[in-house]
């Protein structure tokens, strides 16, 4: 099930995400004061290379981490195996990469100047 290769990918992405998660939690606690708005979010993130790299690496790491974690659960709790298991894991990875990448792009560089 979890070979050395998948285990290393799981732990390395976790190590990358630990400081990112702490940063994200801090931003959330700070930003939620007085409610959220699109203008407020975009004012912080738009055109910022730093936020693009921060959330971009977060999305890359979480796509790999979540896909491996869910793969184990699908196998252990639902008995999914073989091609089906590989297909579902890769699909989740692709879904998170696609939606996450689009979200990061939307709040940083897309429509810059708007």
């Amino acid at each position, binding site marked *: 099930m979890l070979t050395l290769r998948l285990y290393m990918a799981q732990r390395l992405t976790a190590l990358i995400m630990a400081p990112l998660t702490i940063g994200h*939690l801090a931003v959330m606690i700070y930003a939620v*004061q007085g409610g959220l708005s699109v203008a407020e979010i975009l004012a912080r993130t738009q055109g910022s290379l730093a936020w693009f790299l921060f959330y971009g690496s977060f999305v890359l790491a*979480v796509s790999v981490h979540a896909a491996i*974690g*869910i793969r184990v659960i699908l196998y252990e709790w639902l008995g999914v195996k073989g091609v089906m298991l590989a297909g579902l894991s890769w699909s*989740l990875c692709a879904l*998170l990469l696609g939606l996450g990448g*689009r*979200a990061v792009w939307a709040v940083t560089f897309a429509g810059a100047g708007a």
Partner: protein
Amino acid sequence: MIRPHRSHSLWYAFLLHRLSGIGLALFLPIHFYMLALALTDPAQLDGFLAFTDLLIVKCAEFGLVFLLAVHMFGGLRLMALEFLPWSPRQKTYAATAVALAFFISTSFFLQAM
């Protein structure tokens, strides 16, 4: 489901880590989809953000922040267990992870009010 051989705190710590992971994996696609609305339909996103002012939604957000924090602290506990010299205080660390997660999510909740 909780059979006798499982009724000990470190098994519950495992279950909490697994369930919080599932919760986050289910939440993330929605989270990403909503954020992308900032580009495609800002008005709809603003409408949604206004909806998050409701108390019940804030409670749900408290839950999500707790899931994220408890999964991170629980994960750090597991990596410390695997990569640092062994400590016999495993139960204390598991309890500390939950306490820290509760502290952070409560801070978030109080700021959001």
